[in-house]
């Protein structure tokens, strides 16, 4: 029933959209690995005399109000943005999946309590909760990642719980129990592999969401600090110049967000289709 992960690259290569997503991902990976080589200027050094210059040979994507090179900042920001997103989603996955599994498999007051806690977290508007947590914990990159992890954990837990709820009464679980398997073995050996598909898809979606949320939090002053290069913060400072006809400060980091989110969305699409037991979807 399960397709192996080894088939996935071949699956991606057959689909143009997935291929585009992959290419964009590779570009980001290159930016992360080779940022100091790719950047033409320091990403955090102000040069007031070169403030707000339009794109030119010297500054490929222009400069911002402080005279910092936008191209170099976008390259370096890839590190910060993806670091935050990947860590946040990884933490949420590692915590959310087992919790969802246990809560879905075992019923009882403890499970209900855990779900109510998740309800509580999810009942807050994302930004309000993000702002509150960041203002309590301090405006550090790690804290932004932690905030996002807190926001995402219930999502993974719910997905796995829903799967576990439907799987726990299936005949093959009863068979496993009859053959003497312990609860832990049933949960992790029998239910988990079957319940994981939707969570894996959610990983890519969440990374995209995390980029947007980091950008949003920085936009309202609850994300990373100036002058750390971060896409959302760059859009936020650049948006104020838009009315003056200075478009490049906000546009390019905005495009970086678009492409990054797009790459993860396309990969999520591919993963969903790949894991869909009813076969590939055609559009």
């Amino acid at each position, binding site marked *: 029933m399960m397709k192996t992960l080894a088939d996935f690259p071949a699956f991606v290569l057959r689909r143009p959209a997935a291929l585009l997503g992959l290419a964009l991902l590779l570009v980001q990976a290159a930016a992360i690995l080779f940022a100091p080589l790719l950047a033409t200027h320091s990403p955090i050094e102000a040069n007031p005399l070169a403030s707000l210059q339009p794109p030119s040979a010297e500054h490929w994507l222009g400069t911002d109000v402080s005279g910092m090179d936008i191209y170099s900042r976008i390259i370096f920001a890839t590190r910060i943005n993806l670091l935050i997103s990947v860590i946040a989603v990884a933490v949420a996955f590692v915590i959310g999946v087992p919790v969802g599994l246990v809560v879905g498999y075992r019923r009882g007051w403890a499970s209900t309590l855990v779900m109510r806690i998740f309800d509580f977290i999810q009942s807050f508007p994302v930004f309000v909760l993000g702002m509150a947590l960041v203002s309590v914990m301090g405006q550090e990159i790690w804290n932004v990642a932690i905030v996002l992890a807190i926001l995402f954990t219930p999502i993974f837990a719910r997905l796995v719980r829903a799967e576990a709820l439907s799987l726990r009464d299936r005949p093959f679980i009863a068979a496993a129990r009859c053959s003497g398997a312990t609860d832990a073995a049933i949960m992790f050996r029998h239910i988990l592999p079957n319940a994981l598909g939707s969570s894996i898809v959610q990983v890519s979606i969440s990374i995209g969401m995390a980029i947007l949320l980091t950008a949003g939090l920085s936009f309202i002053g609850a994300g990373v*600090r100036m002058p750390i290069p971060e896409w959302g913060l760059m859009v936020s400072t650049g948006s104020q110049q838009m009315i003056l006809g200075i478009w490049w400060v906000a546009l390019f980091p905005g495009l970086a967000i678009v492409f990054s989110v797009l790459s993860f969305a396309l990969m999520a699409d591919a993963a969903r289709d790949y894991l869909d037991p009813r076969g590939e979807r055609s559009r």
Partner: protein
Amino acid sequence: MIVSNETHRLRLSVEPIRSEEVRVIPETETPRRGRGPVRALTRRHLLRTASACAAIALLWQGAPASAQAARDTLIVAGPRTPESLDQEYPPTEAVHELRRNVYERLLAYDMQTGEDGVSYEDFSKITGALAESWEVSPDFTSITFHLRPGVVSATGGALDADDVMWSFERGWNLKSNFHWYMTQILNIEDPAAAFQKIDDMTVKVTIPKPSPLLEKLWINSDLGILDADAMKPHLTGEDPWGSRWLATNSASFGPYSVAKYTPGQEIVYEANEKYYRGAPALKKVIFREMPTTANRVAALQAGAVDVAEYLSPRELAMVEKMPGVSVHKVFGNYIHRVEMQNEMKPFDDPRVRQALNYLVPRDEIAQAVYFGTARPTKSPISEIYPAFTDAYFPYANDPEKAKALLAEAGYPDGFKTELGYRTGDQLEEEIAVILKTAFAQAGVDVTLSKLPASTLVERYTQGEIPMYFFRDMAIVPDAAYVANLWLNSDSLIDYSRFKSDEVDALIDSALTSTDEPKRIADMQRVQQVVMEQAPWVFLFNPGYQLATRANVKGYSWYTPNGNAWFDFHKE
């Protein structure tokens, strides 16, 4: 007081649209969508209706704001409406402007026209306002005001000594602005002995110690005189001073009264036709709250407003080039600086504070951030106030000297510190980023903290943040008054915790001495000490700029930076 504010707000916000606002919708632009009999409600129909409604709504919003509006109506866009209409409310920029237009005070400065055509206060010449004449005792311990006969408030009440006495009594009992001036500046302890009604049109104020500010102080727009007769119907047992009513209403002898006040949206001023200096040329001034500067620029450009307040230097540079728009620039009295917490390591060492001052690239900031509208601060005293001197300012941009000073102070490799600025203050963020790079030249690693205004204020009042941006102005044009606010270690707003025994003594003596030449000499010595001690990173005096449509004339500038609409007219 807050509760009452809310209830009034609710009441005001449901008021119907005023008839004159509806009248100005051009007929040609009324949506013409209704065709024939009523048809079945389709989705398209709904959409059309919705867009027609939206168009009407837009017109209603936009139409009264049109600069084509009558020549006696002025529409102003500013960052916020005043927080309260009561003059005992803590002063903010919006509140200062309200006071300038609504409250009338006892004395004023004579006005003079500068070379730039702007009228300014002449700080050397005091003239009567509500007091037609006045006498100061030779020892500067009492002042007698003879009230101007025939002065009438916006509601028609005539001015007499009872209005003045009641205003004093109210101010004293509310223990806010008036009380602060009387106790802190004039050293009054017993109000019964200090405030005296001589006859129906004469009031005398007696103070325990001589004060050189005995006359000047009464020019402040926070010391307005209320129409006691208009206030009395609104006094209750729980609210004996009518604070609840005055928070959302006006009752003074100024050129305008407030006809409509919707906090967060707009405030409408209506001319007091019986104003003692003559009926204002602008019969109605509508102030609209537009928090985003870009929106104010757009509204001014489109002609939807006549005046746009507080634009950023970059926007002003652009607006200046637009046809049909004028930008008025004055020297102003703001001081924008980074304060260091002088008691906190490493800023307890003056050499460290001096070093940071040597690291500031002032020319670059002036050009890149202020677009030439600001001047470097070379003294803690505003340049336009008497006793100002920039002779003691040594801080050129000299990283080598800064490094040497830091090494001398024991920080050859610099140190780590934090600089706070307000969320939403683009200008401060821009300067902060430049300072971070500049300070890094000497190894000073600055973490920039963007904080909500309330958090930032809390942290610096508690002395918990090593460096923070601070922008303020002192409205009394007197060096000792200014120094007393920011540099006297007893002052509540000496947030940088600067302490110099010599400066304290010089200020204290200048606040009671009436020997003007000595006061000026002492204040120049204060400026010298402060420059040497460098309690702040001296940055800029940003000036004050106002953008208007070109047909708006009569711009004038007063020390609280609020615009006096009485002086304006439209051509």
